[in-house]
Structures are given as C-alpha cells and as structure tokens.
C-alpha cells in the first residue's frame, strides 16, 4: 500500500480523518 503522506492530498485526507477520530475520542473522554 502506498504511503498516503507521499501525496499532498493524501496528507490532507489523513489530517481530516485524524480530526474526526480524535473528536469522537475527546467526546468519549468528556463523558459522551
């Protein structure tokens, strides 16, 4: 599999996905 960070838009999509994942993690840590 190609490293998404090799492409600029792969990097941006990685950042967006990470933001969504961390958002739900933060919500869970804050008690839902």
């Amino acid at each position, binding site marked *: 599999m190609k490293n998404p*960070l090799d492409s*600029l838009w792969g*990097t*941006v999509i990685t*950042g967006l996905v*990470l933001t969504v994942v*961390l958002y739900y993690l933060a919500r869970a840590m*804050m008690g839902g």
Partner: protein
Amino acid sequence: MSMEFLQYGIGRWVHIMAGIMWVGLLYYFNFVQVDALKKAAADTPPTGAGITKHVAPRALLFFRWAAVVTVFMGFWILGGRADDALFFKERAYVPIGIGAWLGIIMLFNVWVLIWPNQKKILGLVSATDEEKNKARRVAFLASRTNTALSMPMLFFMVASGGIFRRAVFGG
C-alpha cells in the same frame, strides 16, 4: 497591568502570531516548496539553487523558532492548569489537552526529525549522498506528518475555550 492581561491577552496574542508563522511556513514547505523544487530540479539546467540557498534556510530559521515560541507561550497561557490539560484531569481541559499534545509532538518532529535532517540536505553539515537521501525521506515524512497533525491540532485549539467548546463538545 494585571498578570491575567499579560497571560491571556498578550500571551495568547503572541501564541497565535507565532503559531501562524510556524504552521504558515509548514504549509509553505508542503503546499509550495516541495513541488516547486521537484519541478526546478527537472529544468535544464536545474533552477532550484536560489531556493535551496536563500529561501529554505531562512524559512527554516523562522519555522523552528516560531515552533518553540508557540509551544512555550501555550504553556504560559495554561499556567498552573497545564497538568489538568496534559493529563486530562478535568473535562473542560480535554480538548486543549489533545491540542497541546499534538503541538508537542509537532515540536518534537521539528527539532528532532526535520531540522537535523534539513541541515544535511542543505549542506549546513557534511553528509554523504546516501545520508542525504535518507535525510530527505525522514525530513519529508516528518513534515508531512506535521501537516496532517496540524489539522486536528488547530481544530482542538479553536474548539477549546468557552462558547466554542460548549458548541462543539456540549455543555
């Protein structure tokens, strides 16, 4: 002038200015310079020497020190609540804690992975061609990692206080 004014007024102002310089230069490297240098290297004769000699070292100078000022001022703003944020001790400090950790990881990448390898790439320290190629890959991936991390970092920074936190994460 009260300590609160200095910490939350001036401190936050400097934190944001330095952060714009840091992330602005990070975006310059990733959205502009990497691709421009690739195209310049393909020219006959190659045309990227000026960027490598004059632009990149100056951009890296402001980039790495802006990173230090940003994180330092962030800690100053947090003050005695830094442990509440970094160890997620209080509900209200969870978003800024996540943002702070992302910023700390990014600062680590700047000083431990990007800058020492850029020194080899730019010829500021001696390195063999093989070492330069390895340095190029490590610095590139660290820079791209920081670009990706900057997105959630900025999200948590702007969603960490008062009405913004309540709007994003609920009361």
